[in-house]
């Protein structure tokens, strides 16, 4: 694409999204506003995909400086390497799918609300995410990050009538801004040391900082990590996630789950692998991040099993899956100096899980939204048996669910297989990682239980009373995004070589071209599968193409066996033990699924169930950040704003009095300053 320059593409995308947001503000009708937004977002997505293709094929893309603020040394530069290109491919896909889905969904479920409260923010959210992943200047990175937080908060706050949802939005606001404050402090420390906000200068600054004041470097990493991990939703900083995600409309939740949590991982990879690449920092923080990742996996998924509300269940599951990505990133950081091949594989595994999870988790949120669209409820105890009437949603849900659970041959299996392999190979060299690998593999089964509960109860079985009013499947504009995302999940699983090549180039860009061994040496030379080799011989093999052929062959063999005697077929009623029973009375409730297992692991999150030792009690209290950090801040904020709101009494004379006092105060201040 030599005719159009990258910055033109980027600014076209920004311009289209902003223009679309402005046009949507004037929207009256849900459908028309929705289609307009989809058109604008579609055009912007095409521009971003062309830009990503440019970066992937042609190498890293740098743009000239814009908006130069010379006094503080900040200028808007964009640097699109292949890691950014991966996100530029993923984010428009998820965003466009969610926008197309929301046309009919919002029209039906939120028909009493105004379209101008949803579409502008959704489009601006996509624009700010694009800005976050492309910019290479810390000042503008923070500005785009804040924009992203504010637009997503506006979407969480969408349903202003519900008291609980407003509280959830407030909690989200406080949590993400505490995280952003930590990031701002870290950015400012780097600025004072290096005098500029550019990414390139930060790496050199940290290098000198480690020699002169290493504790400051550790504090910087901690601040950045807190900032990004809160956004990603890692335990124990992710307490806002199960409150905020169910409060937002389903397509918005799908966008959040598919893009925003992944930006936390993007930030960690970008900052820690590029700025903080010194051995003292990477080994320590690699171990910490991997352990926190394993903890997140364990707590998040077990808490998901406890839930009966479909969206809360998926939100806790997101906390768990983010743990897998952090486990991969942590393993990569830990072995960055000692075994570079292993570090590269771990990083690629984490990024592959990011891609796979983004597609499948947002698809699941869209499925739950479809069930909510049809029946009006999200409670798994009340929904049942929708599969017969909604076959497309059921098929998509099964594909997404099995993909998240990591069952071959879907996409989640490839990424989880890579994560297991890298942690076990790491465990051979550093035994701590064996425990983390075991936790990851055990909780993968718990994830399967969570998804079985969700899919089995919601789509399979007998139709519940809530489902009796369902007449057919959801409209086409809600089906098409689900089909597209399901196809991507299947493709990522069956043809892993293409995403692997892309992520390998991205890892090369992040780690440095000479750092990583050749692709054939790492992943084998068979294009249909993976033969992993981190330097000590073949570590493991997985060939989805041959396995799929074998599976189809064996399934056909089984079918042939079953039809070999041409047995007659007869349809009859379900057998309830010889009694006549109303299906609604004997329907298996979601709450009973794996109930003894749940009781064995009861009260896992937010409070960990530990033996009653005093020290553990206080650790338990400390880990519950909701009660002593976020809760009091949220309450104090509510009380303060309540008091301030009393100034809006509605009496014009009082307002004029405030204005006069204000003018006098400002004049006095100017007088003192200029004297």
């Amino acid at each position, binding site marked *: 694409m030599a005719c159009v320059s990258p910055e033109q593409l980027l600014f076209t995308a920004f311009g289209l999204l902003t223009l679309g947001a402005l046009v949507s503000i004037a929207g009256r009708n849900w459908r028309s506003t929705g289609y307009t937004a989809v058109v604008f977002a579609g055009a912007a997505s095409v521009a971003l995909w062309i830009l990503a293709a440019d970066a992937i094929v042609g190498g890293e893309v740098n743009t000239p400086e814009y908006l130069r603020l010379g006094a503080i040394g900040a200028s808007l530069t964009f640097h699109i390497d292949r890691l950014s290109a991966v996100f530029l491919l993923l984010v428009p896909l998820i965003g466009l799918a969610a926008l197309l889905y929301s046309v009919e969904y919002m029209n039906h479920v939120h028909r009493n609300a105004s379209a101008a409260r949803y579409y502008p923010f959704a489009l601006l959210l996509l624009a700010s995410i694009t800005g976050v992943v492309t910019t290479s200047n810390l000042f503008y990175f923070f500005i785009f990050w804040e924009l992203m937080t504010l637009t997503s908060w506006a979407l969480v706050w969408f349903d202003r009538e519900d008291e609980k949802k407003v509280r959830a939005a407030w909690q989200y606001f406080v949590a993400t801004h505490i995280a952003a404050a930590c990031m701002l402090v870290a950015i400012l420390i780097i600025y004072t040391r290096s005098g500029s906000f550019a990414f390139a200068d930060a790496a050199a600054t940290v290098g000198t900082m480690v020699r002169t004041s290493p504790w400051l470097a550790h504090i910087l990493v901690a601040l950045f990590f807190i900032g990004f991990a809160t956004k990603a939703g890692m335990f124990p900083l992710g307490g806002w996630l199960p409150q905020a995600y169910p409060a937002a409309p389903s397509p918005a939740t799908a966008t959040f789950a598919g893009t925003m949590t992944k930006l936390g991982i993007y930030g960690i990879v970008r900052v820690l692998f590029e700025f903080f690449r010194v051995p003292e920092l990477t080994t320590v923080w690699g171990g910490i991040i991997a352990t926190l990742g394993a903890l997140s996996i364990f707590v998040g998924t077990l808490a998901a099993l406890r839930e009966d509300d479909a969206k809360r269940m998926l939100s806790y599951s997101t906390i768990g899956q983010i743990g897998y990505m952090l486990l991969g990133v942590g393993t990569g950081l830990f072995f960055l100096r000692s075994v570079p091949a292993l570090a590269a594989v771990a990083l690629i595994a984490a990024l592959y899980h990011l891609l796979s999870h983004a597609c499948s988790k947002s698809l699941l949120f869209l499925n739950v939204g479809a069930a909510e669209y049809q029946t009006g409820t999200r409670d798994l105890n009340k929904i049942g048996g929708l599969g017969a009437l909604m076959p497309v949603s059921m098929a998509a849900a099964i594909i997404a669910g099995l993909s998240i*659970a990591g069952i071959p041959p879907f996409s989640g299996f490839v990424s989880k297989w890579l994560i297991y392999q890298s942690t076990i190979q790491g465990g051979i060299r550093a035994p701590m990682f064996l425990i983390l690998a075991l936790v990851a593999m055990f909780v993968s089964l718990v994830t399967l239980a969570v998804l079985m509960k969700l899919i089995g109860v919601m789509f399979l079985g007998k139709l519940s009373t809530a489902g009796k009013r369902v007449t057919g499947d959801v409209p086409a504009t809600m089906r098409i995004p689900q089909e597209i995302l399901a196809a991507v999940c299947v493709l990522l699983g069956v043809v892993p070589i293409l995403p692997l090549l892309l992520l390998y180039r991205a890892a090369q860009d992040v780690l440095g071209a000479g750092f990583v061994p050749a692709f054939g040496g790492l992943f084998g030379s068979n294009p249909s599968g993976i033969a992993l080799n981190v330097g000590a011989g073949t570590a493991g093999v997985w060939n989805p193409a041959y396995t799929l052929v074998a599976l189809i062959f064996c399934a056909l063999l089984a*079918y042939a066996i079953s039809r070999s005697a041409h047995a007659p077929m007869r349809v009859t009623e379900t057998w309830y033990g010889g009694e006549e029973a109303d299906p609604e009375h004997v329907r298996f409730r979601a709450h009973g699924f794996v*109930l003894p297992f749940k009781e064995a692991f009861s009260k896992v999150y937010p409070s960990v169930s530990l033996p009653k030792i005093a020290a553990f009690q206080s650790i338990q209290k400390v880990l519950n950040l909701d009660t002593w950090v976020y809760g009091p801040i949220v309450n104090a904020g509510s009380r303060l704003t309540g008091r301030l709101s009393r100034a809006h009494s509605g009496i014009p004379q009082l307002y004029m009095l405030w204005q006069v006092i204000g003018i006098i105060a400002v004049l006095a201040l100017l007088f003192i300053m200029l004297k």
Partner: protein
Amino acid sequence: MSAIGGVLTNLIIVLALAPLFDGVLRKLKALIHSRQGPPITQSYTDLLKLLGKEDIQSGGGPIFRLAPIMVLGAMLVAVLFTPLGGKPPLGGSGDTIVWIYVISLAAVAIMLGAFASGNPWAMEGASREMMMLLSVEPIVIAALVTAGVKAGTLSMGGIIDWQFAHGASMSMIFAGIAFFLALQANLCKLPFDIVEAESEIVEGPIIEYSGPRLALYKMAFYVRQLVFPLVLVSIFIPWPMVSLYPLSVLVTLVKVLVVLLVVGLIECVNPRLRIDQSMNYMSRVLFVALAGLVFAAIGV
């Protein structure tokens, strides 16, 4: 080419002999019960009878119809990843982790079929199947990861080569004992046949299936009865080492028979455990497996 030959050999041997091993177990049970018992070819005739019986469907859509096919299909693919007298035929396409997850695919198909049938007993059976999976799989995973850590690779062929080259070691003995203790639950035999508890939930997940689909389930269970002991004897007890392939297959099958006889003996003298009792037992076996892993980590 040799891979396809290996595939066909594994499939033919397992499909032909799985009902025979089940017949031997039924004969053993009868002898312990002091009765004559069925002939050892009875399982073949049972399957043939079921294939011709009426296929009764109670709704449930395509998932209901597809589930038995996927269960047997996934178990047969697991057979292709299982070593039988040598390296597994598809060993270049999948390693131990793939083997574990293909078996989980079969379990997923059982659960989906159970949910699709819409019978509350089937759904209770699916719930129990999930809990058994949750309590037993960690032991299998820990044992096989121990083997992988010792061998430095997770591919089955590599582990078997390493075992031949290095002989017995403390960690592999512990892992083998843990795998054997979990074998009873993996094969869903008493005292761990909670999933198909006849007197409690009337065959559980397969309650609504009849005729040829029931035959597919039964065949899948017979195949599962062979696959787990095959992995146990090939990876943890690979001695005596025989280089001639047909002789090696014969030796492996004899070892599997011995293992299955022990399993059958335990089955005959035990009552059924409750699900929470079995989860307790499995957590204790997990300690044995973790001990093996710790020994592997310190290099013993």
